[in-house]
């Protein structure tokens, strides 16, 4: 990184970027940070608050719920697929297991996988994309060709070899999912940053010789948040369904445990005869996605420095 070269330049004047585009400027002027501002704005968005609460409720239900439900793996073979009743709210599956308990227990896995892999992809993808887009030139070329190369590698072979090397390991799941999901994120962020790079305020910041890390974290990343949040909310369900494919390859949840992804996969096989086997895990995923999305929308608005002017 050519950051060292920059430091030999004369120390910059304190720089105030145009308030319309620079989020960092809020910090100094009103005595409360961007995040406090955003938080205040978010709280005023009723839909986002409801959705956030809903997400927390789902998470609590999935992580604490299984302690109070029936054992999600307790079989009763003679009870092959029964429709929902008062005893089994969501019916039972092929082995007579309580679907409600399985959906809750599966939610633990799916939420954890969805969250962790998304965070991995978010952190790597955003940083990588910003650096590549901002520095441009040869650095960008090398970084983006690396993304192309990883993207083109055969995923199945990659996963199989990972398992040969490290055995069946739950952590590997995050590695495998994170390894692919950050690539597209990096491309999207890079595209945004390339457009931002030539805007007046970034050029001004450059001209003033602000450290590049400051430009990246204070000025560039906050301005890409819109598409980033949108793409993140798209990534989470994709990851949850991908996990089911990894289960097929033997990485993922070992049977008899389930995840939303594997439950949906199995439910889809008999969706015409026993639609509830697909419906309930599908609903769990969809409701989570909808909440995430409206929360994401609210978050985007809250973080948008221009929003307050409207």
């Amino acid at each position, binding site marked *: 990184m050519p950051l060292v070269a920059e430091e030999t330049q004369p120390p910059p004047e304190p720089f105030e970027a145009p308030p319309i585009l620079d989020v960092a400027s809020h910090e100094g002027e009103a005595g409360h940070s961007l995040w406090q501002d955003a938080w205040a704005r978010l709280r005023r968005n009723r839909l986002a608050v409801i959705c956030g609460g809903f997400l927390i409720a789902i998470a609590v239900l999935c992580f604490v719920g299984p302690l109070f439900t029936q054992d999600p793996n307790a079989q009763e073979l003679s009870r092959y697929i029964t429709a929902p009743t008062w005893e089994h709210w969501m019916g039972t599956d092929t082995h007579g297991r309580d679907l409600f308990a399985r959906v809750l227990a599966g939610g633990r896995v799916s939420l954890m996988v969805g969250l962790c892999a998304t965070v991995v992809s978010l952190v790597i993808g955003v940083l990588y994309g910003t650096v590549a887009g901002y520095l441009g030139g040869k650095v960008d070329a090398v970084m983006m*060709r690396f993304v192309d*190369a990883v993207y*083109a*590698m055969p995923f*199945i072979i990659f996963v199989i070899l990972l398992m040969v090397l490290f055995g069946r390991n739950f952590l590997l799941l995050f590695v495998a999912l994170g390894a692919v999901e950050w690539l*597209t994120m990096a491309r999207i962020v890079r595209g945004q940053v390339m*457009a931002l790079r030539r805007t007046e305020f970034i050029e001004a910041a450059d001209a003033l010789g602000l450290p590049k890390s400051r430009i990246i974290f204070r000025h560039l990343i906050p301005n890409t948040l*819109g*598409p980033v949040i*949108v793409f993140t909310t798209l990534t989470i369900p994709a990851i949850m369904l991908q996990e089911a494919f990894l289960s097929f390859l033997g990485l993922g949840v070992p049977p008899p445990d389930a995840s939303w992804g594997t439950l949906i996969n199995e439910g889809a096989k008999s969706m015409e005869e026993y639609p509830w086997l697909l419906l309930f895990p599908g609903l769990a995923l969809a409701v989570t996605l909808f909440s995430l999305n409206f929360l994401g929308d609210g978050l985007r608005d809250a973080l948008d420095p221009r929003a307050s002017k409207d």
Partner: protein
Amino acid sequence: MLKFIASRLVQTVGVVWLVATLTFVLVRFAPGSPFDQERNVSPEIKANMEKRYGLDQPVWKQYVNYFGPLIAHGDFGPSFKYSNRTVTEIIGDALPISFEMGFWALLVALTLGVGAGVLASLRRNTALDWLPMSLSLVGISVPIFVVGPLLIVTFSIHLGWFNVNGWNEPADRVLPSLTLGFYYAAYFARLTRGGMLEVLSQDFIRTARAKGASEGRVVLRHALRGGVLPVVSFLGPALAGIVTGSFTIETIFHIPGLGRYFIQAALNRDYTLVMGTVILFASLIGLLNLLADVLLAWLNPRVKLD
């Protein structure tokens, strides 16, 4: 610009070579050989088969044996699994089909997706925003292996409009292309809306509006250019994914496209076919990302290609 494109093409060749080499080595380290079957053959027969395909030689020598004819006259070799067909033939047969399906799907995805995204961003928090955006969420959260069979049951079985499987009549294109198109339309819609919202609140749009430019002009001439940036960035990988076919859709609708070979080749350890598909995919990724970057620069004059 031409210099940029030329240099990118050279880089792409490098990437393809790197990916091909890595894959060549990795696939040989994956457990299981092309000849492992449920019904085991005796070690002697297996040794004979490995010798027949040169798998008894050290990896570097196999590498030379593979890349030699490939570079000399573009020969990708015969498939291990489909033994009387060459990899070139297999890809040559399947690629046009995937391309065609990809074309229709892309048409659906871009018109529906970008259209709905623009509309939603202009009519923020109205029914015109809620409805398409909720639909797009449904499109993302309902997996293809659910959408496909549902379409078949409705349109092929109950209504009898389409064949369940095959890729022969023009009507056979409809359901698979729609299934694939809807999926990407959902992505495009959300990305467009996000990008548009970002742009619409910017000063130059306000200025344009204040100057009395018609709404259509504001949207088409000014906002859309910036608004579709995320879509354009996503377009490279998305296009590569779309035109190389979808394993799930091709399986559900029984279409002889390329998507199935990507998965099956890896699962069968069909070494030569894996190589063929990977080289194709890596090249496409390189080319389509180049296209996306050029498009990015064209849409946004601020972006400099260097």
